[in-house]
């Protein structure tokens, strides 16, 4: 797949994907990257993810707190807020409609 195009797609939805993962349970940056990777979104670098988390935090979509990280340094855990849940709910419906439209057009092309 064209790398440039893929990263553009990702830019548009990464914050929603992060909220989606956090909707299951609170998590921290490195673990989020692994969760997203497991879901098929690989190649996300820290330099991309952490600014997204900062913006979500600034917008009140998530809250953060520090917790000891076992043998390593403390980790900053993020938890989704009710506002974040609401954003996720609304955007998930929007995304379905949008992606459905794109898929319908592209499927037609692929079937030709």
């Amino acid at each position, binding site marked *: 797949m064209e790398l440039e195009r893929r990263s553009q797609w990702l830019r548009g939805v990464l914050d929603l994907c992060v909220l989606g993962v956090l909707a299951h349970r609170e998590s921290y940056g490195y673990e989020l990257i692994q969760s997203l990777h497991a879901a098929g979104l690989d190649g996300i670098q820290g*330099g991309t993810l*952490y*600014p997204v988390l900062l913006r979500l935090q*600034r917008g009140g979509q998530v809250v953060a707190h520090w917790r000891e990280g076992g043998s390593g340094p403390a*980790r*900053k855990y993020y938890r989704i807020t009710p506002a974040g849940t609401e954003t996720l709910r609304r955007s998930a419906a929007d995304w379905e409609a949008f992606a459905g439209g794109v898929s319908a057009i592209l499927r037609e092309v692929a079937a030709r």
Partner: protein
Amino acid sequence: MRHDTWLDALAGELRRHGVAEQTAGNVLAETAAHLWESGDDPLRAFGPPQAYAATVAESVRPEPPRRAPGGPVLLEVVGITKRYGRRTVLREVSLAVRAGEVAAVVGANGSGKSTFLGICAGLVSPDRGEVRVHGSLGYCPQGGGTSDFLVPDEHFLLVGAGRGMSRADARDTGRAGAAALDWDPRGGTQARHLSGGTRQKLNLVLAGLGDPDVLLLDEPYQGFDQGSYLDFWQQVRRWRDAGKAIVVVTHLLNTRDGVDTVLDLTPRGRA
């Protein structure tokens, strides 16, 4: 690149971008934890410290950045027209800048940006129109403005005296302003031996001496390196937050600079 070196550089750049100390501390700790756990190369995972700091600064800057307008208008320019010979440089130009606002004056070379600022400063008289300044004025010219044989401290005393400041106050305020631009003005270097960029820093500090209400800055960052350029806009934001009305003549307009009004002097038909 070694983690520590990269993190140190990031710390410096975050400070330079005006990220609050506590926020920067959190970002640094989180980044360090990530590097520790992932074993990533910082340059690969986060990119150059300078660029990453800019992204972080952008991501933590409070939104919306606009404070409620409604400060009093401190600078009013109404219907200015200026001709040089048969050439009309400015035609019916108006601008109002409130306390806590930044206006950028842009336009092609020769479109009258410096003339406009000179008129605002009262150094050039217009053929028509009026300028009203409510409060005191600080002006930073594009060049000149310094005295070749005086050292920076003497400039601070001289200009400070003109604005009613005590010697000690003028010197301390001048040195603090210089430090904000990453410049140590102590030591007896006469202005004629300062580099162009440093002379502009001196000019800029002088413009801010005595806490003027209105600041007129004519492309003050010529000769600045990238870091000093950021320090300059940082200083502009501090002035804005302190309720000054600021006019900056510029040909480089970066949307992130937090400008409230843009006055484009490019003549119609040439834009």
